[in-house]
């Protein structure tokens, strides 16, 4: 079985983002970038499947600028086998990403795609479901547990207010939620090995996919800042202000 894991390079989750002075985008220059945390979980799950003999190969794909190769190598250091980098200096919308991934899935004959449920930059939470639609594959989103028996995948998913269990047949799409696993730290020997693994580079224009944006970004702004509050002296004062000033209890 071949597993495809798409990964996205995003601003590190610990960075306080800033909107650029033109108000057109979030500033990415000189900002620490890393793999989308949900994608790390996806890589981890795929590598574990390979380690337990359920999969033969873990293919890593990323769509983005040159820096994406570093993100692919991070996935290699965790255990990914080889990489595909679709080069686009500009932002690619989820629908176009799904179309490109569909081509990769078909070309590579992947049996399973495990991917993050959402990227923490645009927060769209769309690509996995869109890819499933385009391939006419079943989807198991927001997964917190996977159990593979032959061609049947039992998936526990996180839904509002609890959990849901589904059975999906391979080939299928799984999107990861936080509880699925805890991604490993790459060891130094594995980081060294990752440097030698192969990445195929394909310019987005050569994918044959229409990647024109459907959404025009008119502006990006910072939300209204919270006005700083004040300290209260004790529990009695706290209860008093919550009751009589804020009116929330």
């Amino acid at each position, binding site marked *: 079985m071949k597993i495809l894991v798409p990964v996205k390079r995003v601003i590190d989750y610990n960075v306080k983002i800033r909107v650029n002075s033109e108000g057109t985008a979030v500033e990415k220059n000189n900002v620490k970038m890393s793999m989308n945390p949900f994608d790390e979980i996806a890589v981890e799950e795929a590598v574990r499947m390979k380690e337990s003999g359920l999969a033969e190969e873990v293919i890593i794909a990323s769509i983005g600028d040159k820096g994406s190769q570093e993100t692919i190598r991070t996935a290699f250091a965790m255990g990914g086998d080889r990489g595909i980098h679709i080069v686009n200096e500009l932002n690619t919308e*989820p629908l176009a990403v799904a179309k490109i991934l569909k081509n990769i899935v078909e070309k590579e004959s992947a049996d399973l795609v495990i991917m993050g449920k959402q990227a923490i930059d645009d927060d769209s*939470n769309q690509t996995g479901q869109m890819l499933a639609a385009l391939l006419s594959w079943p989807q198991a989103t927001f997964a917190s547990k996977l159990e593979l028996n032959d061609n049947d995948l039992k998936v526990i998913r996180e839904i*509002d207010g609890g959990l849901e269990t589904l059975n999906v047949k391979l080939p299928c799409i799984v999107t990861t939620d936080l509880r699925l696993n805890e991604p490993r730290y790459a060891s130094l020997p594995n980081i060294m090995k990752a440097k030698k693994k192969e990445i195929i580079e394909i310019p987005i224009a050569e994918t044959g996919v229409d990647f024109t944006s459907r*959404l025009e970004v008119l502006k990006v702004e910072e939300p209204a800042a919270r006005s700083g509050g004040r300290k209260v002296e004790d529990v009695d004062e706290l209860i008093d202000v919550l009751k009589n000033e804020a009116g929330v209890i």
Partner: protein
Amino acid sequence: MSILVIAESNGTEVDRGTLSAITAAKKIGNEINLLILEETEEVINKAQKIKGVSKIFTASGDLEGGLAENIAPLILECAKDASHVFSSAGTFGKNIMPRVSALNDSQQISDICEIVDSDTFVRPIYAGNALETVKSSDKVKFITVRSTAFEAANDEEGNAEIVTGPVAGTNGKSSFVRRDLSESDRPELTAAKIVVSGGRGIGSADNFSILDPLADKLGAAVGASRAAVDAGYVPNDYQVGQTGKVVAPELYIAIGISGAIQHLAGMKDSKTIVAINKDEDAPIFQIADYGLVGDLFEIIPELSDKIK
């Protein structure tokens, strides 16, 4: 042209998220139709009274578990003359809407918090640390709505017409097994009016129960910071933050939470924020409306005790 809103219910009430999506749809001004899946007479009767809804499509066939594979074609069937398709941005809408949107070759717009005009929407990115205004060039717009951003539609004066809708097929590739909803008497984190959250300052998994009496008194949901989750105090589904749940309750009480960026991203839209921390320089105090510096192990029991 019309707007189709995908309704969710618990079998007796139309979900709050759906009522917010209807309010959002009204701002566009087209006729609003509702698709009710897994309907009951009670829900249909209540939905009929929602002001501003023209038609209610009922559905039949294989609707068990609301599988995206079965329901996506059915939604498109009901959306034939629609300019927009709306749902709430809960896990149901997040799961199903992109599938529907891709089948229609449209780029979905997720989690909108404001409608500028019928093509232009504002949505949070970076967990709400920035707001993006986007204009869609797609013919049909598929949209999920952040329910905390729109009031619930009033449900008194409407008189919608009931239309028998399409029949869902069985796809043969996925099947629903079961749903295990939390038995807790506490409200769900993202829907709660009050959230009490603990951080690393709580110190251990055992200590975390110190929040229970307070949460019980306030009818609050219990959350946690990523630091508390990573330390193993509570399971991951408690996590409030950029990589966890985004909440915007009326009152958020952060206890023993220093206020890392990743946490603030998940709760800073709360109406009133209270921070309780022994470190008076903790960053959480910079965004809290009310801060109380001190030992949480003394403050929390006292607070639980004194709240009536």
